[in-house]
């Protein structure tokens, strides 16, 4: 995969919440066109990794590089403008805004109205369920639709890299499959994806490669199909 070039690379990244060390020097690479998944139990540092990349949480030391450029200390909004979009855990859609208004947030930095309309229509093509509800309040959508809206909102920024935090959380199995299908399609259209998941089974089916986090450290990495056959992974996360 190396010949495709590194899109995102973390070098020895350390993040602290006050006195608590959440990431103890993490290094990982994401190559262009890949789906990479981060696995691990609660509190392993998966969400923190994504938050540190998108600048929502400051890194203490180490580096985040996007296309070779150091973005470790950049402001979240400039990281978004570069094309690295974080879809936060729990979807975080705006409950009191309509579906269309929620999508418009994603294109906030875009001044071209025609382009904005084009992107909204594209989101509605990808998610026909949202098109039927474009004037409904975000809070009235079902869990699956809210997740679609969160991903659609991220698509509005025309992302190069999507950081997805637990997109399957709280969804029925059939919806999980649907969301994963959408992530796969987005990836095939050229978006690189870093996926954080508790549902390791689904994540490893989808991903090219994976990293396993434990208490803020990477303890294992490799191709997804190899990881899904590894005994310790099977025991810890796949529940056989």
């Amino acid at each position, binding site marked *: 995969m190396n010949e495709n070039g590194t899109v995102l690379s973390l070098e020895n990244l350390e993040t602290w919440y006050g006195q608590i060390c959440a990431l103890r020097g993490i290094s990982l690479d994401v190559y262009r066109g890949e789906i990479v998944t981060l696995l691990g139990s609660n509190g392993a540092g998966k969400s923190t990794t994504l938050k540190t990349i*998108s600048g*929502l949480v400051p890194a203490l030391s180490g580096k985040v590089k996007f296309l070779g450029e150091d973005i470790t200390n950049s*402001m*979240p*909004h400039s990281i*978004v*403008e570069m094309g690295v*979009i*974080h*879809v*936060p855990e729990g979807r*975080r*859609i*705006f*409950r*009191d*805004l309509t579906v269309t208004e929620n999508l*418009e*947030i*994603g294109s*906030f*930095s875009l001044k071209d109205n025609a382009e904005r309309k084009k992107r909204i229509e594209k989101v509605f093509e990808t998610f026909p369920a949202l098109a039927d509800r474009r004037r409904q309040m975000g809070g009235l959508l079902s869990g699956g639709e809210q997740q679609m809206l969160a991903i659609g*909102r*991220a698509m509005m*920024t025309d992302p190069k890299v999507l950081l997805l935090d637990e997109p399957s959380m709280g969804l029925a199995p059939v919806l999980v499959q649907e969301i994963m299908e959408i992530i796969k399609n987005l990836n095939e259209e050229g978006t690189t994806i870093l996926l954080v998941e508790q549902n390791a089974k689904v994540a490893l089916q989808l991903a090219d490669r994976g990293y396993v986090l434990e208490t803020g450290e990477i303890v294992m990495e490799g191709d997804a199909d190899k990881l899904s056959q590894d005994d310790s992974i099977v025991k810890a996360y796949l529940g056989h």
Partner: protein
Amino acid sequence: MSDKQINLQIAATQVTAIQKKIQSVIDKLFDLLENKKIRYSIYAVSMAALFYLPQKTSMYVTEIMTNVWFHVVVCLGLNIIVGFAGLLSLGYAAFFAVGAYTSGIMILRYGISFWLTLPVSVLMAVIAGLAIGVPTLRLRSDYLAIVTLGFGEMVRLAARNMAITGRATGLVGIDRPAFFGITMNKIAHFYYAFLIMAVLATIISSRLQNSRLGRAWRYIREDEDAAEAMGINTVAVRLYAFIIGSVFGAIAGSFMAIKMTAISPDSFTFTQSVMILLAVVLGGMGKIPGVILGAFITVVFPEISRGIGQYRMLIFGVVLMVLMIYRPQGLWPEREL
């Protein structure tokens, strides 16, 4: 079911029926206002009436209405911070203290024309906005309220203890300026000055609400973390709210200094900040006509109920409590979708 229960149920259905009727009337009124011709003629007629008012009424009424316009300006200013951006602020009086003292000091101590003090007042307001905005960037709701409360008290106590602000006596004998050769010494002059400011504040507020910045305020008000993750510069957006809100307050404060001709630290107490916040919440946070209504009520209610004597504030308090329990979104109605 007993008779009593049945009666209660009938009463309840009647109440909901009445509520529905009221809502349908409100919706019809909103429909009517959608029509631009009707809306602009209402604006024109009410503006004409408001400009004509001082000619027809007593000085007492003019004085109170002047006070209403002053409150409209400061309430719209606070509404930018609290209503648009959702940043709970309990120290707004500090901002009009900054304006009032800036103009007062420059006029009284240095003999500078009032009109020239206005740009300085704006500049000081920007500094004051940054002074409260920057240290509180990471603070939310209750914590922010505590710090802004402290800020308000700090400004008041500083004014009380500094020689340049005249300590506890404040500034006395601030000269009134002339406007195209007319010295502003009648209440009607101030009535017009504050009315024009209120109109400008309303127009600016509504333009801001529908602007890009206004939308960004709405996003950080709804969910600051999500807004930040979606690429909104939350730092800049928050600071703009404090700065613009502060400028509204400072300009109103500057004019207050020349209207009263005397200002003292007691004009800028915590109670003042609370009364302004109360007007905003009472009318409806973030809703411009609601905020204007709130400003009107908080000024006029204590005046018209003077006959009741000292119980009026108690009654006002009870009415407010009842209102907040049954209409937490504020008095101004909203169209049902």
